[in-house]
């Protein structure tokens, strides 16, 4: 029957994964290299999830912030069309400005204009330090944004110098702040966080009224336990002295 030949894909809502990447001077070297490498390697996985997912089409947007802020593309892109330009590190940490920039794009006149509508986005913040600008007023503005309120928010703290309190403020909970201590862990965490957030639209939920944010964090936390050099900010920090005094 001719009716069968002209079938088109079901409309899918768009789920955008936002990367907010700290490219301040302290990220220079291995750290920024690992971020670039991890993102390049996770994009094909996101593409695969998007292509086989009848519920959501997944797009990617990336904002880098140092002394200023810069979007890698001026609209969210399909992972298959997102050609990652390696970001370079240098300058300060304008996280407050980045919050304001994100707030501008989290609107229907900004990046959230998909014709069949959107799902709440996933926002992944990566930082190794603390903000050097007026972070609080930027965040206050962002927190009044409905898209941000509904978003899945995860922060990755790279090394011990990252300001965990700031990241906790950003995501809204210490459970959603993940700390990595080495380059390999950083790569694995980026992969886990991106893949888990991308899959959330097509997963069955379990009893107990768990929100998507909680579900993503739970899945990531489960996975983090197996990654050497990564931990959740909510877990107790490893003891530096190996409890030698207890011998």
């Amino acid at each position, binding site marked *: 029957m001719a009716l069968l030949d002209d079938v088109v894909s079901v409309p899918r809502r768009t789920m955008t994964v936002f990367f907010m990447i700290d490219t301040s001077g302290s990220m220079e070297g291995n750290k920024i290299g690992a971020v670039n490498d991890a993102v390049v390697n996770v994009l094909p996985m996101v593409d695969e999830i998007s292509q086989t997912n*009848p519920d959501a089409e997944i797009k990617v947007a990336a904002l880098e912030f140092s002394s200023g802020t810069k979007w890698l593309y001026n609209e969210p892109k399909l992972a298959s069309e997102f050609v990652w330009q390696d970001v370079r590190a240098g300058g300060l940490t304008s996280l407050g400005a980045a919050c304001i920039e994100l707030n501008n794009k989290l609107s229907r006149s900004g990046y959230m204009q998909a014709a069949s*509508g959107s799902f709440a986005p996933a926002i992944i913040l990566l930082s190794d330090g603390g903000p050097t600008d007026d972070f609080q007023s930027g965040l206050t503005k962002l927190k009044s944004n409905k898209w941000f309120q509904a978003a899945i928010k995860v922060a990755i703290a790279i090394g011990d110098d990252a300001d965990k309190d700031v990241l906790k403020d950003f995501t809204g909970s210490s459970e959603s702040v993940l700390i990595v201590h080495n380059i390999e862990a950083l790569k694995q965490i980026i992969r886990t966080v991106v893949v888990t957030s991308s899959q959330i639209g097509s*997963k069955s939920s*379990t009893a107990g009224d768990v929100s998507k944010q909680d579900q993503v964090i739970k899945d990531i936390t489960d996975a983090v336990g197996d990654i050497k050099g990564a931990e959740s900010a909510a877990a107790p920090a490893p003891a530096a002295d190996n409890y030698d005094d207890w011998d």
Partner: protein
Amino acid sequence: MSELKPGTKIGLNGGGQVEIIKELGRGGQGIVYLVNLDGAQMALKWYLNDPGDKFYKNLERNINAGAPSDAFLWPEYITKRESGSFGYVMKVRPRNYYEFGNYLLAKVTFKSVTAMLAAAMKICDGFMMLHRHGYSYQDLNDGNFFIDPSTGDVLICDNDNVMPQGDKSGIMGKARYMAPEIVAGGIPDKYSDQFSLSVILFMLFYANHPFEGARVVACPCMTESYEKKFYGSEAIFIYDPNNDTNRPVRGIHQNVIRRWMAFPQLLRETFIDQFSEEKLRNPNTRLIEMKWKDIINKVRDEMVVCPHCGDEAFVEIKDSSTRCMNCGKTINTSLRLILGSRELPLTPKTEIFIDTDNIPDGRVAVDTTGTTLIQNVSPDAWVVETASGKIKQVDPQGYMPAKPGLKIKLKIHNEDYNLEITTK
């Protein structure tokens, strides 16, 4: 979290072992591996995290009970609890079966309406058998079905949440497929399965979601609270006759707009009823699978092969002729085979499906003189009584004339059927 490397051997409960060959795929809960079991290739679903004793025991019980029907890719063996977790072994899904999601994404399309109807029938039959065995499926969604596009044969996967009706697996289901009472926090059971089944059937036939129309598209961000509203407390069927606020949108819901009126009225009426406020609110009034099978039978009866263009076409059973939806020429459907409340138009080349096993039992043909014939393509002989009382036998592959007044007695799967040829 535990992953297995190729070459790893995992012991099976009750003896024997499987050896990991390679990974076939992974989902949220676990990884599926190709494994070797005594020289045979099987699939092992391995849980990344041990789901616990209750889950293990339930799975073990389901394995011992066996599959409710051949539609299920049922767990066959459970592993011992090794390497931090466990898994179960099932048959490998053949290559010609594609995930239902691929059909929704228009990457795979049914070769024919016959195949589409066969898929619908097989899905209903599978869940009928599952519920008849006292189970509920709990997490029925688009990810559970693999379908052969040319035959419509179905394999139902992910049978690890199948539980005795009334038991809790802890799973709620997938958004957009969950019944309103589950969205509101209820416990999945066979009635919520029946709701999800209607959603799946709707999507199979019309390739759009029954609750996604103008009202839902207008929502810019589908948050969890909106999801609860649009698919739960305030779900509105896109063709609700009493509420037109959620009609499909041109350019977005193209498939259902094109197919809704082209597919039989019986199908429209059934979905309007199943997705009415009344049925959404009262789970135990939903259509049982056996009734769905009757409806699919009748829809299949209304599908003929157009004698002019050779394409499949739906005809209106209440009329004695219909214009072909493909070529526009008139199809004469006055010659009928009557079977209880069913009427099957006897148009040349049309296949006759009497029972619900998706295997044709008869085929309509025309001889060189232009007389319409019925060929017996079933494995058993038919007994025919003529208008004057003579008894004739039609052997398998044999033909009989499609003469009004002839009465046919036949047996399929030990079930007796009495048919009669009439004209409208």
